């Protein structure tokens, strides 16, 4: 049951956006309407869920000392990880274009930009530094993606409403988005009280 444990922990308690600031660029840029935020969130879940186990395998069987070449190649980690991510994003782009042209048009430039979304590479690096197992790395990817999805949907919904409020002109847009994210971060901190072990023991 460690799978559920890791999933809940990464989605709620250690949310990628709200406690590690990963993926902030697209989080701020694409959160103007719920519809596009939804599409991007789904794409991020998908890419994270695929790249985490692949990067885990690359790290374990190619780069580590126990791997194929028998020498420590971990300094190549950045280049190989980013190449995997770029390839996977390309794949997602082709799938989305085929099955949902409307979503493809709505996401536009932001789909290829998932490559440089820090949440993906950051997730891979966190996964390595925490020494998770293969199944847990899948849970980490899906949970991290789900947490990111929740955060972007929430901020998009708030920003849609706040357009009708009387915000000081200098604070409108970006400034307000930052402050809202801070408030959401504090709200998410109350989830720290969740004990993931309680789910695991059932």
């Amino acid at each position, binding site marked *: 049951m460690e799978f559920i444990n890791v999933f809940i922990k990464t989605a709620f308690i250690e949310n990628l956006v*709200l*406690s*590690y*600031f*990963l*993926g*902030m*660029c697209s989080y*701020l*840029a694409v959160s103007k309407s719920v519809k596009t935020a939804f599409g991007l969130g789904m794409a991020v879940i998908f890419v994270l869920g695929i790249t985490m186990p692949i990067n885990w395998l690359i790290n374990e069987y190619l780069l580590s000392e126990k791997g194929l070449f028998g020498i420590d190649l971990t*300094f*190549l*980690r*950045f*280049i190989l990880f*980013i*190449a995997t991510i*770029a390839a996977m994003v390309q794949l997602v782009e082709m799938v989305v274009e085929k099955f949902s042209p409307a979503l493809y048009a709505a996401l536009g430039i932001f789909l*290829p930009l998932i*490559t*440089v*979304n*820090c949440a*993906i*590479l*950051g997730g891979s*690096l*966190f996964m390595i*530094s925490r020494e998770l197992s293969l199944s847990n790395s899948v849970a980490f990817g899906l949970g991290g993606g789900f947490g990111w999805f929740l955060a972007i949907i929430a901020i998009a919904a708030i920003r849609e409403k706040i357009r009708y409020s009387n915000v*000081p*002109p*200098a*604070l*409108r*847009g*970006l*400034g*307000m*988005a*930052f*402050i809202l*994210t*801070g*408030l959401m*971060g*504090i709200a998410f*901190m109350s989830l720290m009280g969740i004990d993931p072990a309680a789910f695991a023991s059932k």
Partner: protein
Amino acid sequence: MAETAVKEKEPLIGFGKTERRLLTDPLNDNNPITVQVLGICSALAVTSLVYPAVVMAIAVTLVTAFSNLFTSMLRQYIPKSVRMIVQLVIIATLVTIVELILKYFNYPIYKQLSVYIGLIITNCIVMGRLEAFAMANKPWRSFLDGIGNGLGYGAILIIVAIIREIFGKGSLFAGSPIELKIIGPTADYLINTTQSALFGWYTNNNLMVLPAAAMFIIGILIWIQRSYNSKLVDVS
């Protein structure tokens, strides 16, 4: 704006008005964090102490400057369809070099920055400047643009870090050789709250240590900047 290709004839290495603007524009009018909204990802996480923030600012400046330089040198040879991969390889190589240097010279800071050094690769500033500037300009100007944007990023990083460290920890530059202890409950600090009659009420603000504080501070910095600089105000 400095975004468009410069048409006039430029010397190989010179330092005139355009060059100076490349360095100073990103500090205020075209700041990467508060105006271009690039590179927030790794910026906020390292700002709870000043010393790691300074190291991070230097690392990002080096990477943006040199990746701009190399991309600009290669710009005529990079096919358009694969340019992202080429740029990512250049950036990833530079970041690996910076990481190895940092690991060798200052291991504790390397440990503290952990994955955020690696995340310079996906720092949108680097990629954004390559796309917006280096692909269309000559090497020397691209190099200066990289340095300018690195400094603009570093300035915001250090302002946020100073506010967070003073109010959250009561110190400045903790962990570095020039550590300053400003306010706290023991005799090591400049203002000892247990002795001082004036500051007896003072305790550190734990909110400042939380990630959320960085969001508030940047939000307020944007507010201040846009109140003085009305052309940046978001009209939508």
